[in-house]
């Protein structure tokens, strides 16, 4: 009993901080979500609105579009990151000249702040001045404009995210690959499996917990993408890259619609938790299956 009290005593600073920075804002947003509160409304202050903000959300087509767009962005970005990350991890698991140099260079994007990533990509891709549109036009006669072409803007944000976060996926995959037991791989080779069969029937099942954990982390990141996309496209052209985080930002800050923005944040959090829970369950099932 005494030991228990000591444990709580040492845990208390972390719990207090967690309560202040995590739970208090959460409950505050939950509370504000039930109010009509716009700083520039004729009726000043907060006015109880019940579930009205949530009812509005259901019919808010731009919000629903932004949710779907965000999901699409996350799926494409994570899939590409997994493929490239796996290939690079395999490469880094072998020895080759200049490996250390490549590993350092490859990890640099991880160290750059998202805002700086967005600003850099904006400088690279800005129509009229950026080197990317300039050389695409000069060498391939290809018109590239992230401020006028919705599809190009979307894919540019995906590529930027891939550039930024693939090193993270590579590192987790590398950790998984180096920890794989050698026996099943050797046994499969002895049994006559080719490299593709070894990859698909042995490596992927063994790496599944690592892959799911990586997807879990990256998905949560991707669903709350704001800063780098905000710097690159500002959510445009029109709504082509207005992901949910950016949409919420527009509602809460420029529009100062705090009640509605809070409801929107909560619903997005709910979706994120739901998807994460599905992944978590999948990981749990895998582990139970292994036992």
């Amino acid at each position, binding site marked *: 009993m005494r030991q228990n009290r000591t444990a709580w005593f040492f845990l208390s600073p972390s719990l207090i901080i967690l309560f202040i920075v995590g739970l208090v804002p959460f409950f505050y947003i939950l509370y504000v979500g039930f109010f009509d509160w*716009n*700083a*520039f*409304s*004729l*009726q*000043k202050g907060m006015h109880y609105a019940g579930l009205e903000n949530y009812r509005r959300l259901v019919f808010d087509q*731009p919000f629903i579009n932004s949710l779907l767009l965000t999901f699409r962005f996350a799926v494409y970005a994570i899939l590409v990151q997994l493929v490239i990350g796996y290939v690079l991890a395999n490469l880094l698991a072998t020895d080759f000249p200049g490996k250390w140099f490549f590993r350092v260079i490859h990890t640099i994007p991880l160290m750059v702040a998202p805002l700086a990533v967005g600003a850099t990509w904006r400088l690279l891709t*800005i*129509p*009229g*001045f950026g080197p990317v*549109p300039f050389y695409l036009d000069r060498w391939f006669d290809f018109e590239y*404009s*992230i*401020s*006028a*072409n*919705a599809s190009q803007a979307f894919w540019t944000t995906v590529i930027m995210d891939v550039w930024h976060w693939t090193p993270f996926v590579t590192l987790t995959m590398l950790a998984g690959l180096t920890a794989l037991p050698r026996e099943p791989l050797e046994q499969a080779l002895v049994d006559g499996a080719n490299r593709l069969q070894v990859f698909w029937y042995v490596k992927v099942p063994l790496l599944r917990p690592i892959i799911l954990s990586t997807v879990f982390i990256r998905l949560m990141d991707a669903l709350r993408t704001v800063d780098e996309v905000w710097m690159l*496209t*500002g*959510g*445009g*052209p*029109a*709504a*082509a*890259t*207005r992901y949910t985080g950016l949409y919420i930002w*527009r509602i809460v*800050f*420029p*529009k*100062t*619609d705090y009640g509605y923005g809070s409801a929107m944040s909560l619903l997005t959090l709910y979706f994120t938790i739901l998807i994460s829970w599905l992944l978590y369950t999948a990981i749990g099932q895998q582990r139970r299956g292994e036992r």
Partner: protein
Amino acid sequence: MKKLITLVVLLAVVSGFGLTANAQDDNWWATAAAPYAGVTLHGVSESTPPSNYAADVLAPQFEALTGIKVELEPTSWDQMYDKAIKDMEAGSGIYDFVYIEQDIVFSYLAQDYLVDLTQALVDHPELAAPDFNFDDFTTFIDDFKNAEGHVFGVPMEAFVKIYLYRTDLFGDPEIQAAFEAEYGYPLAPAATHQQHEDIAKFFTEYGEENDLDLWGTTVQAASGHSSSFYEFFESIAPTFGVYNWGINEENWKATVENGGQMNSDAAKEALAWWVSLLQYAPPESTASTWDEVAATFAAGRAAQGWVYGENTAWIASDPDRSQVVGQVGVAIPPLAEGVMEAAEAGTGYVGYYDGGAFGIPHSSKNIEATLLWLQFIGQPSVQPEWAAAGSRIVHDATFDDPLVVEMDAQTNGYYTLLQEQGYLFKGAPAHPFHAQVRSVVEPFIWQAIVGEITAAEALDQAAAAADEEMARLGYGQ
């Protein structure tokens, strides 16, 4: 000899008197600021040439005189609003003074965010600087007054969004002859929208034929930024006779069927015309906000266009930043029939009279010290150099200063136009829901820019959304 001695003595007396007066001024600031010496004032402003001048030049001068340090944070327009509004709404007191753009002041006054400066100076006569007088300011200060005439912001920048054109191109005899041969009238600054379009087309083709990075016009059409909303509703739509964003201020409605003008035929024609100019504009136009449009013109990439006047001075005179020094002309923007007459009669306007002031939030923790700072920047003595650096004038007397007269010549009459025809321009309408209605309208403008919907569809949907938003905020119900 006697006369010479008399002259020397006279000069000595006069200069001595001047020195004494200066010393007295300095003493006043030091005495008035003594209780606040060591205080640091924090402010936030949009990063504009006048704001940067205040941060880089005036703040150190003020600190040397008073011992009060001023930390002014010039940031992007979006961030400036975010920070200022959040601070004032929460009452956190992070900022002692905030930039109040002319278009947001009505919202701030409606929310009672700002300190009444007139009253504050009455309440603290010991802080009233001898050189500071609200009467020195141009009529632009009226935008920062309430119904009783009390001032809530000290103007620090004021300018018009002006039509700029390249005098070297417009004055080239060969180009003039080619233009006249093609269009049947002499090349001159555009007076009508058709002329603007003709000139834009002509110079775009001229750029292509001569392998130049030159296009016919600027367009501030960032397809995901509010600046495109502002260019359309504050600079373009008025030249077609659509004022106050097309919102009927008597019943707070935007749709034509409810008495508004936002989706009127004139507004639709204006938007269609403006969007059509993109074919004659540099490729960066759909990513251009206010700063980028000025940069485009300064880089010599456009023959004409609407540019915020605060940039005129550096574009016309700073060879380190501009490729078109000495080649900039200014004029009243092209207008539809009847707009000039309406502007002269005071029932309409030809474009946007922009600017801003510094005001003190109620939440400031150093109201008295900030009052001194705001008077310091509002003194006549600091105005001329500030005007030359930032193309802004807030005092009537500044127009006659030799420094400004010289800069006026370099800009081919920008300051004269501001002084003599500034009354034809108008600031943003006095809407207490400025950012809220803009937020619901601008997505439709962006869709029109990228061609997802037509101009007519955009304005029909925008007007309906504006009506709905105003009703939600409690206006026009």
